[in-house]
């Protein structure tokens, strides 16, 4: 029963947050002073046809709350409105761009998981020794490198000086596409590797000091088994939590990295749409990122009690 209550409450929070976010994203337009037609047609010729089209599309002749309800209703039908710059449905435009961003985020995620966990575990198991100190210093440095700096340095070294990788574009076909994503995914991963490594290290150290680990060791269990079953498993909680937070950062940073490497993904679409005053697309992408972020964090919250039942017990007791 406890688990049910927990799930119901998390889903409730999820819905409330997404609803509030949709309000914020939609009504943010009302913050702009002046005529909404003029705002939506900035930088375009306000011909009578264009005015009529944009008025009809956004229902600008209706009251704002009615516009919101229509917009929300359309969202549920998968209709995100029409892009002003491409004269296409926003859904179509997003679908075209999705594969690149998905590939970039997945590749970066794999890098973050492997490198971050490995660095954190190695540091924790060598606490206070040279390996630990070296990893700590390296991670402090990495953590201070914004993704666009990583992108510039990688381009300068590996694309321009050494010429090993392409510096621009998405490439053609699957293999070439992946090849074009290698440098960008490294640039995207760097900061987050440092974050995961630091959390893994401190979470492992916290567990290594616990009595149950001492008991397991004194019972003569092999070190690898103690580390895997008793330390790492119990250390998963904080690592999982930070991974949830990390997703939002990854999605936003991907817009910087895609822009730096000229990749045609969702992130560079966001930047391009802001640049070309295409508000419907901006609105859709911002809401999409927030929804993904809230969704991932809810999943993380729900996974936590599966890995560590004490979390569920604690939440129910509160």
């Amino acid at each position: 029963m406890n688990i049910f209550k927990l799930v119901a409450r998390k889903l409730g929070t999820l819905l409330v947050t997404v609803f509030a976010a949709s309000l914020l994203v939609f009504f943010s337009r009302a913050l702009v002073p002046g005529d909404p037609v003029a705002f939506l047609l900035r930088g375009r010729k306000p011909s009578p046809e264009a005015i009529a089209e944009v008025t009809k599309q956004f229902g600008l002749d209706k009251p704002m709350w009615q516009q919101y309800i229509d917009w929300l209703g359309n969202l549920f039908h998968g209709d995100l409105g029409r892009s002003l710059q491409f004269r296409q449905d926003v859904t179509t435009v997003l679908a075209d761009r999705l594969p690149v961003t998905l590939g970039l985020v997945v590749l970066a995620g794999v890098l973050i998981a492997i490198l971050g966990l490995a660095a954190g575990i190695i540091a924790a198991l060598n606490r206070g020794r040279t390996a630990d100190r070296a990893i700590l210093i390296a991670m402090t440095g990495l953590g201070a490198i914004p993704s666009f700096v990583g992108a510039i340095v990688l381009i300068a070294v590996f694309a321009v000086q050494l010429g090993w990788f392409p510096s621009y574009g998405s490439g053609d076909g699957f293999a070439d596409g992946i090849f074009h994503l290698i440098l960008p995914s490294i640039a995207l991963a760097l900061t987050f590797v440092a974050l995961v490594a630091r959390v893994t290290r401190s979470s492992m150290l916290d567990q290594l000091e616990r009595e149950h680990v001492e008991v397991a060791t004194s019972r003569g269990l092999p070190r690898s088994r103690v580390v895997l079953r008793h330390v790492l498993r119990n250390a998963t909680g904080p690592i999982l939590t930070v991974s949830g937070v990390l997703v939002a950062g990854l999605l936003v940073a991907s817009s910087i990295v895609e822009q730096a490497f000229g990749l045609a993904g969702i992130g560079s679409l966001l930047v391009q749409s802001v640049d070309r005053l295409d508000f419907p697309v901006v609105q859709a992408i911002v809401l999409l990122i927030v929804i993904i972020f809230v969704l991932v964090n809810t999943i993380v919250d729900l996974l936590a009690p599966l890995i560590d039942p004490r979390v569920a017990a604690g939440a129910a007791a509160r």
Partner: protein
Amino acid sequence: MRALAAPPSVVKSLRLPRASGLFLTSLIVAAIMVVSAIAAPILAPYNPNIVDLANVLSGPTSAHWLGTDALGRDTLSRMMFGARSSLLGPLLVVVLSTAIGILLGLIAAWRGGWLDALLARIFDLLFAFPALLLAILAVALFGKGLAAPVIAMSIAYAPFVARLVRSLVVTERTRPYVAAYRVQGFSGGWIALRRVLPNVMPTVGAQSTLNFGYVLADLAALSFIGLGVQAPTADWGAMINESRGALMSGQILPAMAPTIAVVLVVIAINIIGEEFSDRLGGQIPL
């Protein structure tokens, strides 16, 4: 009237110079950046916007220590003037978000009840919007430049400060000195502002110092993607963006010099902020 001596303040422990070399180096780096930003008109060897098409991408020479960019503008001078917008933006965000955060955090902790619950909900909603995303949305609404992103990021960072202030004040108000003032008839507002606030300020300051680094990186990224500071104004992020063409053709310096400046400042600020928080006994939650 002073019925009680002010409670022992944490500020005193900050004054003990037990600084490591790394910390001192960071302070010096930060000081150099601040001085070159303030004194740029005096110190900069050239006008940062003077175009010299006869002397394009010169590389380091005795006349131009860091070379020139694709328009023949002196990179060192642009770096010094660029320090102004690059540092002023984050400074404004940190001051604004700290002020809003302290106010909301104090109100939440002191009043409690439904107001506290409501504020917590609003903060939870804002946490779902990454600061940079909120800044990009603000640019989409109000146009390019530094003004809209600075306000948006102040709103995005205020909840972090507010949550910290709230948790500190909730603990602080249970301490005996608060009750002692109460008994003597001091008003709640006076105790909160004049006695409790100064005690939580050092921790808040340490957190805000760390925030400065994050905001600087975010605003530089915003200028890098062309949505922040606009040409021809010198700004580190914008300079990196403008020098991408030169970078691709093998001229690294015009893009790399501002890149290094960003990294140096961010690392220095991180070290300074963490040193502060270490001295306070690591009260800052990660």
